[in-house]
């Protein structure tokens, strides 16, 4: 069994969906820093996806530091750095802009948006 849930949906590349599922599992604490992450083979077998697809997703996660490869041990969940860098905050700008545009289009006010962001934050992270 994989240590994170994933239901594959139409419309998006499977590797992107896999990356997202792992990120979500990390922030919710389902995947603990330092714990072992399944191999490409295990991910491919469990999800019945092409090994190249699993490989691609894991490579992205390693590139972003969410997973770490330790020779002889395998892949483990990376440590979450304490504070985000300016560069990491910049990466989110596009997503935030989209969120503001959608919210404004639906006639939401800023405090409505803040409220639902906070709800999701609490739901996903348990904070």
């Amino acid at each position, binding site marked *: 069994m994989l240590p994170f849930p994933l239901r*594959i*949906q*139409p*419309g*998006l*590349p*499977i*590797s992107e969906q896999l990356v997202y599922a792992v990120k979500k599992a990390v922030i919710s604490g389902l995947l603990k820093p330092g714990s072992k992450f399944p191999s490409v*083979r295990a991910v*491919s*077998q469990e*999800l*019945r*996806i*092409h*090994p*190249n*697809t699993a490989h691609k997703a894991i490579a992205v996660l390693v590139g972003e530091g969410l997973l770490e490869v330790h020779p002889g041990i395998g892949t483990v969940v990376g440590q979450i750095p304490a504070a985000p860098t300016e560069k990491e905050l910049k990466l989110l700008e596009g997503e935030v802009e989209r969120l503001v545009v959608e919210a404004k289009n639906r006639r939401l006010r800023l405090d409505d948006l803040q409220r639902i962001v906070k709800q999701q934050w609490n739901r996903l992270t348990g904070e």
Partner: protein
Amino acid sequence: MSCRFGKVEAVRNLTLAVLAGSIYAFLGTNGAGKTTTIKTLLNLIKPDSGTARVLGADSTLLGPRELAQIGYVSENQELPERLTVKQLIAYCRSLYPTWDESLCRRLTEKFALPADRPMKGFSRGMKIKAALLVSLAYRPQLLLLDEPFSGLDPLVRDDLIQGMLELSEQENWTVFISSHDIEEVERLADHVGIIDSGVLTLSESSENLRTRFRRVDAILEEGATASPALFKDGLLPEVSGSTIRWVESHYVNDEELGSRIKAWLPDCRAWTGTPLTLREIFISLTRAQRAASPLSL
């Protein structure tokens, strides 16, 4: 290549490349030309024109050496039914120098086949499992599967897929799998081709295919009308009152599609784009293709 049987052109000017290391799903309705293509790749049929190259060799020159690196399982698989699975394994083991005994044991366990009963009494699912077992155990470089899942229950299909993935740690392992039911190969395949009436209508990475289609529903302002001719790039346009629906085949993102819709339909009040499953994409493409070139069957 092209293949004809009498007056029927089963495969017409097919040009197709399957990359080493990919799992290629070759989709088409019954009679589309899938089996003919696969049989050509195995030198069971000679193309009437053109050539097929398999593992670097012309398909009409395939000899025992190349065939020992190809696994083949078809819907109408014939097995020596008087034999038991144990006897079948013993027989095949002696034929293939690359036979992997430990893989064979793992697959036997996974497929839960009775070892000592003649296969004559086996269900369809058990027979296909036995055929796949002896085709995987010699670790072929190329696996050709012709409708392996048709008529099988979901559990057996899942066993077969898991069995195939047992080979996945092997370098440059290529699978060419034909099917009329897309769902079963949707996750597995990294490349997809669609053939209809002998003509290849599409061949691309499944990542691309998954992302570039949306069903669009656009609602116009009261009283406004639009002609479906506006959407010559969209598939299967339908107009009903002030609602227009079509399948968008070059979707990039909502922003880009939104600006195109605005240009086409200044009277558009609202629109939504819904992702399509591979099955819906297959149906839309095949219908659109047939609407564009009605066949004289």
